[in-house]
């Protein structure tokens, strides 16, 4: 029993982490416009799985460069969206169904962290790392949709860890089945968030080079150059098929979005430009309570790299630093961009904790006191992490959900109704209203910003065969169809427009 204790604790950790993630998982309000877009595209994928669309039936002119309002949507890779669509297929279209794959994958990622940790260090170190990851506040926020880019980052994290597990097993055993695992993992990670997935190849390359750089012993590495080529080949097959398909089918959007990825390196995209040291702030946010202990462990652990020549440690540093370095130099920096370094640094931290809490024969009284203090601090941080994780899931954001308006519209408006939704520029919470209405209803919705822009838009909608309706929080000199106190929105019909199917019957 005592021998199996770490595994038993792991099962408990996994179950509690997953249960916690289920808490209010289906809260109605999308956390960010990104999550709303992801869910909407996933919903549209149910109708046509190989054509990702945001506005499925556009009634007004749209620009291919505008990822928030275009038709074919290649702004994010397909895999997280397919996962969402699959979940919709089984559980119906809802916010819960969209987030469920994230809850599952993030919990399985914890399991992978444990498995990698066991391979590299010890079961105890692996358990500490997986515990920290299981209750990570940042990951909880991603799962719950409060932090962008929600499902996309979780998917990347899981498949990266899968590929990384393959690489680590490959380094240890040299078996071909792990080449397949790494290649497939990397391919799926690429289909989750494109190029960051190549950290798997980077780590494999580091494993190859580390004995030459005196960072590991040669006998610890059974990986060869042809393994690396094979990993890349398998990745090419897994990810290349979809890339090729989209490049042929939607060449304009493909080119725009592909260029957009690389523009992050040199341009300030969507005001996310930040100086190099912003990486420290974001890392602080990602590790939250454990940031300082993790930072001490990671920075201090560098001193062991050359001394111990430990392959596992070298690979973990290659993993973590390999993720961070491009981010340091990129002009655009988003908070979750370096999420995939989390397991690597947590494992280094786990090993650090195991070494520092162990009693030693030469310990003086002061050392013993320090050790006790350190353990108390760790317990405190652990409790804080659990509490914060719970806090994240307890938000249950269900205000201003537009549910009433959507229900009314779905019941009363004709099938070619087009909702023109006014966006309150001052309140970011309203930015995804149009997308949310499209998610909740079968209708197309377009946004407008200036007060009277709906007039010009409605003419364009009519010209394209749609029937325009206005959804706004402003008061307009138009006939009111429905006013929702809960949503704080009014649905207006436009003059000389049929009010709805029931009215037509009259």
């Amino acid at each position, binding site marked *: 029993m005592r021998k199996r204790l770490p595994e038993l604790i792991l099962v408990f950790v996994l179950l509690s982490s997953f249960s916690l993630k289920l808490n209010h998982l289906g809260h109605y309000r999308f956390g960010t416009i990104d999550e709303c877009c992801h869910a909407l595209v996933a919903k549209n994928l149910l109708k046509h799985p190989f054509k990702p669309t945001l506005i499925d039936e556009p009634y007004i002119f749209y620009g291919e460069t505008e990822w928030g309002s275009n038709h074919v949507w290649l702004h994010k890779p397909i895999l997280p969206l397919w996962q969402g669509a699959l979940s919709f297929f089984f559980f119906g279209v809802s916010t819960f169904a969209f987030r469920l794959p994230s809850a599952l994958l993030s919990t399985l990622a914890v399991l992978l962290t444990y498995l990698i940790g066991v391979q590299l260090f010890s079961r105890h170190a692996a358990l500490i790392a997986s515990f920290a990851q299981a209750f990570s506040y940042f990951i909880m926020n991603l799962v719950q949709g409060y932090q962008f880019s929600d499902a996309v980052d979780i998917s990347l994290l899981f498949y990266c860890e899968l590929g990384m597990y393959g690489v680590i097993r490959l380094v240890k055993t040299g078996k071909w089945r792990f080449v397949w695992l790494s290649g497939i993992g990397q391919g799926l990670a690429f289909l989750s968030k494109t190029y960051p997935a190549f950290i798997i190849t980077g780590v494999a390359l580091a494993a190859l080079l580390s004995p030459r750089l005196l960072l590991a012993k040669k006998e610890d590495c059974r990986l060869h150059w042809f393994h690396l080529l094979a990993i890349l080949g398998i990745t090419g097959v897994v990810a290349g098929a979809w890339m090729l398909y989209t490049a042929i089918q939607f060449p304009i959007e493909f080119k725009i979005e592909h260029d957009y990825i690389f523009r992050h390196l040199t341009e300030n995209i969507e005001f996310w430009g930040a100086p190099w040291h912003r990486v420290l702030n974001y890392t602080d946010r990602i590790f939250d309570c454990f940031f300082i202990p993790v*930072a001490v462990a990671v920075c*201090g652990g560098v001193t062991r790299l050359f001394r111990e020549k430990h392959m596992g440690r070298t690979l973990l540093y290659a993993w973590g630093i390999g993720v961070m370095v491009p981010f340091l130099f990129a002009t655009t920096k988003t908070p979750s961009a370096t999420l995939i370094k989390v397991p690597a640094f947590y494992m280094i931290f786990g090993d650090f904790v195991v070494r520092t809490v162990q009693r030693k024969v030469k310990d003086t009284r002061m050392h013993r006191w320090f050790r006790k203090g350190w353990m108390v601090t760790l317990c405190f941080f652990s409790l804080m992490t659990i509490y914060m994780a719970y806090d994240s899931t307890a938000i249950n954001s269900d205000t201003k959900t537009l549910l009433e308006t959507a229900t009314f519209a779905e019941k009363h408006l004709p099938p070619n109704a087009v909702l023109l939704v006014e966006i309150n520029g001052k309140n970011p919470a309203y930015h995804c209203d149009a997308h949310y209405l499209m998610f909740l209803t079968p209708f197309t919705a377009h946004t407008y910003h200036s007060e009277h822009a709906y007039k010009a838009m409605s003419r364009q909608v009519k010209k394209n065969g749609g029937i325009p309706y206005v959804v706004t929080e402003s008061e307009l000199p138009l006939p009111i169809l429905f006013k929702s106190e809960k949503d704080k929105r009014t649905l207006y019909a436009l003059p000389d427009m049929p009010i709805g199917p029931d009215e037509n019957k009259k």
Partner: protein
Amino acid sequence: MSTQENENIMIKLQRVVISFVLVALILLTFLPRTLSLPKHWSSDEDLWMQRTHTFFFALKNGKFKETLPAYHPGMPTMWLGSLALWSTYLTKFPVKSDVEDTNFYTPAMLALVRLPIAVVTGALILLIGFCVYRLFGKVSAMLSIALLSVEPFLLSESRRAHTDALTALFLFLSLLLWLCALESNLSRRRYIVFSGISFALACLTKSYACTLILFIPLVWVWYAKENNLCVSRMMWSVLLWLMMILATAVGVCPYMWTRVEMLVLCTFGGALLLWSLRTLAKTDTPKLTHTAFEVLVGIFFVVVGYTITASAPVVTTILEKMFQAVAESHDLPKLFLGNILHNPGGLYFPTVTVVWSGVLTLPLIGVSVWNAAAQRKQKNNKVFCLTIVLVLFVLFYLIGLSIAAKKISRYLVIFLPAVSVLTALGATHLAQHFTRKWVRYALLVSVFLLQAVPVLRLHPYYRTYYHPLLSGKWVAENTTCITGAGLDLAAEYLNAKPDAENIQVRTTWFSKDFGNYFVGDMLQRHQQTHETSHDFDYDIEYLRDKQVGGKIPRDAPENYKIHGFLRPGRNLPRELEHVVTLNGIDYVWIYRILDFPPENASETPHENVPP
């Protein structure tokens, strides 16, 4: 009398003499700095008064985020100025919170703000003297204090509400304390502690002091190699030094108190500080387990990371300004060897150093270097090591300043303390060649008098000093003059006129500080219009106007436009009435405006100047 009694009398006499010399040195250090402080209002001082005012009221109101009004950042200047402003709260007329209040910008208030800076710079000179005593002995220390006290530009900068003198002295003190620590084989922690504090204060006064961080590691490595110092002990000392810098920065910079990172910085920085203090308290070689070393490195990087994030908004601006200073020249053109230039080139600072130096400064530095070189191969080559470090320090900043595009003559104050100490070392060495004691002392006193008299006779306009072997005409025609000198005397001249309150005076941008002393009305030329220009009584012009006003710099770009405040105003019929001359150079010209042009109108300045 017995031999014992004779010895006792001699010891007592020696003590009396030493006490007398010490008192004399203290008076010499403080009196030239603290007397006649309201005189000679120079450029930027109103700016630093304004910043001090903002800082003081931000502190008073607990708005710590507003305590950083300048990128320099000038913290000690503002702290000391605030101390002066706070002292007004003990009087009937405390300073008002309105920074635009004209009653604030008076000579009396300027003197009040200048006083603590003058006192602290004097105290720093004495501390530097103490370090020189530890390193070179009492004669060198006394002469160093004497020469530092009368170093003309250090002296004049010590009397200004500005940053340069404080920066130079804090920085040099930090270096000397490090040298003291290295000479004591790192056995005395207090030197390192105070060096850290001093360096932090230097950087907080003016950011370019932080460039010492590029120089000091060379000293560490060289000393560790030359004196076989324990590397581990050296690392701990460096850690202690860095943590003292951090602690001082956090303590002195109120902006840092508002940062969320403060708690972590205090906890971990404090832990490292205590750890290094405790380790260095032991006399044996410090040893660490692998895990303890790992934790130490980890905590160190956490502290570094948090320091970066906490100070990033400020440090980024400071670094940008530093790079700007390296890449872009100053807005105001300089007169250098007869040419008007924005960037006067690499010879500018060496030339200005020579122009500003004392009669014996350069020869005596040569003697000290020669003496150091002679001791190079000796077993105990302490003097060699120390002198070379000082010479390298001077060269490091001289070359650094020469490389940067922005060149303002007062910047070289940063290495002038080292120049003074090297001069003192040269003189001491020269004196050692004489066997008779009285000859030695006579030589040292002569050196001091030759250096000091040409400076002290200029009180309080020390900045008008130039090398006594040069002529005033040459200096005025070849080097950019200093700002503000003599304007108070010009104002005194006009204030003595009957009905002075009703006199209207037109000034140039360079002579604008005239207004701080003048009781009548004043308008700057570039502000004048046709409506405001007809009823002037006097026109004031400053030497700098004659030097660079209205002229196109030789290195100006093609589409260059002369700054508004450097353009000449509308020519008015005028007649020269009075000239203020200081140290043989005409600084201020007072013209009486005539109702009609004089018959033999010879002076129509800037006739051929582009509009």
